[in-house]
């Protein structure tokens, strides 16, 4: 049975859990963890239902909820999902559930951790469901608070630095977005009511834009503002420096959320806001964005190659993989690339989540992540090696695993529009394969390091967090249609809108 | 001699002297006197404008009376604070008051 206002329930159910946790006495940490877990299960169930029931052929928004929120500013509580949101919502619900299990070994300040985590969960789902610019912004910013504390309190040795860096970088992007948001608000008039509007569906209608919002300079600056805001989140290369720090210092589950979901918000925001609101600028910026994507692919891969810290390696690989998404999203001559890009968003979410979980497993045991200090781990931990192998192969784009399809779609699609960029990007794949295989060899193969000879094998709880992701990776590798089905119609619409 | 501009000039002179005094004096009492000069400059302005430009309602004169009252109150309170500070510092030099900085 699904409740009415499904999206609201899905967004705010974790928040209820967070509220409940605050009242649990301090001596029952397990109860708090239990509540946190219980608060993520219904949203996952609802998200799964959403996935099944979602009308694949509709281009409009579904499960829409719209009530006036602040009349003085014509702000609405406006939720709805389309083909781009559904996979993201599903991914969020799934990873939140998995991350709660992965956080079971958190033992200090349990109450704070799980309450903040659930708050984070709420804000992430809110971002993916909001259709009112103002609401989108509120959720977008709301995410920063729990994230700051989750990195800053439960993180690694340089957690304070990483947390503030993350916060500062993202806030720069956010405040620019705020300014652009208000420019759009005053630059548009809702035809029906004569009021200004934050409604993204209305703002997407170019005819509501007032004269000054039609000026090229304003539009160009607005697009730039939004683009910087989102590029910081993705992160594209000149704006990426917060990411390795944040990833390395964050606790495992938070790295998973960061890489699995937060990075996607950048690309999601571009699809949801930049493209519909400023399609002409989207075309104008396409080559620039594709170039930044390419730079991210190559630069990320090269940096990853130079890392000795396993977590940092994965962090840089994320930059590289998100570069593919940006590249695919900048292609408007066909829908193949953009489909590949959104599929890559989903696939990267699952694969990188696996990778971070796996690093967490080894870090919990050995308390180091230095690639060179391991060796021959495959003998000690064969199951672990198996999972890691699968994740590494998926990440490097081995045919038969999910990332291969999305990256191939991106490259095939973008080749039509940007020949040189695409060819150069292909070297990124080779680099990726190189560093993952090399890492694999250094960690798992070769002579066994006696120091780590008695590391215990992966536990049942850890296996439980990894298995669903592994299944998805394999399944989507053979048959990507479950996701492509979902996003196809919406993306076709998006591309048509941008092309004009 | 008996024109508006004479008085305005006098007022401006007093006011400027007051400002100069506030910036130049290091003694608290001196600064207080300088501030009183500024107020007197304004008072003369009010009186002069009242006399030459808008004689009918005697608002300007009333204003001056109030300024005198306020100035007295201000001086009383400033002096009491200065005395309190003097008890601590044993000095009325403003430069000695530098506990708070940064």
């Amino acid at each position, binding site marked *: 049975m699904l409740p009415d206002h499904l999206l609201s329930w899905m967004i705010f159910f974790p928040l209820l859990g967070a509220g409940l946790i605050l009242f649990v006495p301090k001596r029952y940490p397990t109860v708090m963890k239990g509540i946190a877990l219980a608060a993520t299960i219904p949203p996952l169930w609802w998200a799964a239902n959403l996935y099944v029931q979602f009308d694949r052929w509709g281009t409009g928004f579904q499960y829409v909820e719209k009530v006036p929120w602040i*009349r*003085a*500013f014509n702000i609405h509580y406006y939720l709805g999902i389309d083909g781009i949101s559904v996979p993201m919502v599903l991914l969020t619900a799934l990873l939140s559930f998995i991350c709660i299990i992965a956080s079971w070994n958190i033992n200090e300040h349990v109450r704070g951790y799980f309450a903040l985590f659930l708050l984070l969960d709420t804000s992430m789902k809110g971002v993916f469901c909001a259709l009112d610019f103002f609401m989108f912004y*509120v959720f977008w*910013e*709301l995410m*920063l608070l729990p994230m*700051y*504390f989750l990195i*800053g309190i439960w993180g690694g040795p340089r957690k*304070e630095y990483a*947390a*503030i860096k993350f916060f*500062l970088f993202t*806030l*720069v992007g956010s*405040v*620019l977005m*705020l*300014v652009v948001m*208000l*420019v759009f*608000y*005053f630059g548009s008039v809702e035809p029906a009511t004569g009021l200004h509007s934050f409604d993204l569906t209305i703002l997407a209608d170019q005819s509501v834009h007032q004269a*000054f919002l039609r000026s090229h300079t304003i539009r160009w*600056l607005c697009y730039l503002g939004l683009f910087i805001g989102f590029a910081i989140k993705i992160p594209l290369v000149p704006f990426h420096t917060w990411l390795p720090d944040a990833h390395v210092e964050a606790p495992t589950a938070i790295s998973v959320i960061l890489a699995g979901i937060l990075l996607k918000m950048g690309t999601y925001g571009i699809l949801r806001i930049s493209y519909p609101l400023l399609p002409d600028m989207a075309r104008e910026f396409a080559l620039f964005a594709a170039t930044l994507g390419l730079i991210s692919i190559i630069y990320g891969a090269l940096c990853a190659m130079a890392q000795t810290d396993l977590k940092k390696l994965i962090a840089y690989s994320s930059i590289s993989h998100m570069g593919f998404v940006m590249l695919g999203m900048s292609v408007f001559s066909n829908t193949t690339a953009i489909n590949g890009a959104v599929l890559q968003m989903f696939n990267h979410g699952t694969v990188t989540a696996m990778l971070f979980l796996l690093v967490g497993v080894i870090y919990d045991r050995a308390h180091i992540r230095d690639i060179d200090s391991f060796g021959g781990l495959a003998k000690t931990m064969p199951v672990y090696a198996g999972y890691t192998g699968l994740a590494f192969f998926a990440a490097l784009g081995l045919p038969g695993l999910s990332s291969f399809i999305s990256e191939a779609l991106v490259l095939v699609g973008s080749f039509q529009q940007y020949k040189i960029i695409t060819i150069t990007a292909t070297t990124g794949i080779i680099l990726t394969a190189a560093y993952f295989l090399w890492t694999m060899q250094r960690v798992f193969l070769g002579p066994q390091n006696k120091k780590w000879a008695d590391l215990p094998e992966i536990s049942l709880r850890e296996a439980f967090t990894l298995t669903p992701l592994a299944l998805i990776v394999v399944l989507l590798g053979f048959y990507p249609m479950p996701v492509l089905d979902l996003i196809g119609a919406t993306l076709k619409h998006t591309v048509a809108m941008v092309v004009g | 001699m008996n024109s508006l501009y004479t008085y305005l000039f006098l007022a401006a002179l007093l006011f400027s002297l*007051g*400002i100069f005094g*506030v910036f130049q004096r290091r003694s*608290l009492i001196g*600064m*207080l006197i300088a*501030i009183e000069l*500024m*107020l007197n*400059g*304004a*008072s003369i*302005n*009010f009186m002069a*404008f009242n006399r030459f*430009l808008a004689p009918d*309602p005697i*608002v300007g004169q009333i*204003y001056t009376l*109030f*300024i005198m009252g*306020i100035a007295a109150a*201000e001086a009383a*309170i*400033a002096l009491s*604070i200065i005395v*309190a*500070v003097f008890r*601590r510092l044993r000095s009325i030099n*403003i430069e000695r*008051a530098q*506990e*708070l900085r*940064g």
Partner: protein
Amino acid sequence: MIPENFIQSNLQGISFIGPELILTLAILLILLVGVLLPYWRHRILFTILAVAGLAGSVLPLWKLPQPAPDLTYLSNLFVWDWLTFLSKPFFAVVGVLTILLTQVTGEIDNSEYSECTILVLAVTMGMMLLVASTDLLMIYLAFETMGILSYLLVGIRARDERSGEAALKYVLYGAFTSGTMLFGFSLLFGLAGSTDLLAISQKVAFASQHPQDRLLLIVAILFFLAGLLFKTASFPFHFWCPDVYEGAPTPITAFLSVGPKAAGFVLFIRLFYPLFATGHDATIYEAVSGLDWPSILALVSAITMTLGNLAAIHQNNLKRLLAYSSIAHAGYLLMGIVSLSDLGLRSVVFYLVVYLFMNVGAFAVVAMVASAGGSEEIDSYRGLGARAPYVCVAMAIFLFSLIGLPPFAGFVGKVYLFAAVIYKKIYWLAVVAALNTVISLYYYLRIVKAMFLEKPTETIQIQVPLSSRVLLLALLVPTLGLGIYWQPLARVVSGMF
């Protein structure tokens, strides 16, 4: 011979200053009690009397007629518009919060407590009068009532060296700037031959056409600005602010940072809009031709916020840090003034209301921590989150609200101010303010970081009494509530202009 109806109308007018009269009665009563019961100087008695007086002062508002922009009383000294009407409860709340904060923290000795409550009430009365005044004479009198008594409030801990020094600096700066402002008043009086703002505004519109009169106007505006920028702690008259805020007792600092500051901004609206702007009926105003004060103020705004934020980064004393932050906030608030629109005025009022709760909240936490055995230095906040979680979470919320992050009220206030300047297409100022928000994040987060991210250096248990917790809760509710649903307040401020 005084006409009959003159007396009649003035007698009627007295009912409009009911709030001020009730406050005066309360002041007299406290004075009397303080004299009659010299050996029974219990704080709680004075607190109850003062709070009752402040609460009673807003009661007459229900009896009075509907405010209207042209409803003046007491020989046109005051105007009874929505700004007047709503500022009375606003200042009453400021006063109540200050009194309660003084009550729950021990910073002010019992021996000075009754004087302190009297002064708070009197300054509150001055502020109430100030925002209602439409006459240069009344404005000056109310301005000085507010000013002179607040010098005393700052120096109320006479035996404390820092308090005395703060009062000294405050009184010197204050007297200097108010003298400058007064000179500006005198020039304006000379131009118009009247002290009534309405009469002056007609002359100003006329005079700005003539070059030599325009010069006089510009000088007058500059002199005005001295007084107003001083009270609002804006560049270039902000130097007193850190010293005074640090030296004054913390509850008084909280009071100064919201009370006189708010009064200063309301005075901006009272003086600048009728005098130097035209277009009262429209939603957009225009500066009187030839006097481009909005551009000057826009520059002042940008400099003020940048300066305040940059200086705050290096502060280790929390009161000093919050003082610089309050300078920065004055810069933000000026954005609403320069936007010359109804939206801008609304944004100023909205922000002042929001600022009241979050800023008093932040100072309240500082006062509580200091009186519970900590200090005002950031070092004593290390690891405080584990020792006093409730207070620290409250502090974090106030600070996040001051930064302007959703879902806290400060965010909405900032959206209002940003909206005001973007509405008028002053994009550069919006971008400057946006970047300032990022700078401010850094130093506010230093406190949050110390509280939650760092390990404690000492293990003294911080005990915060229940009364303090309740007071914090009373400040938290609006800080959070107005961030999530601010339609009621939005409606109120929309009705004002």
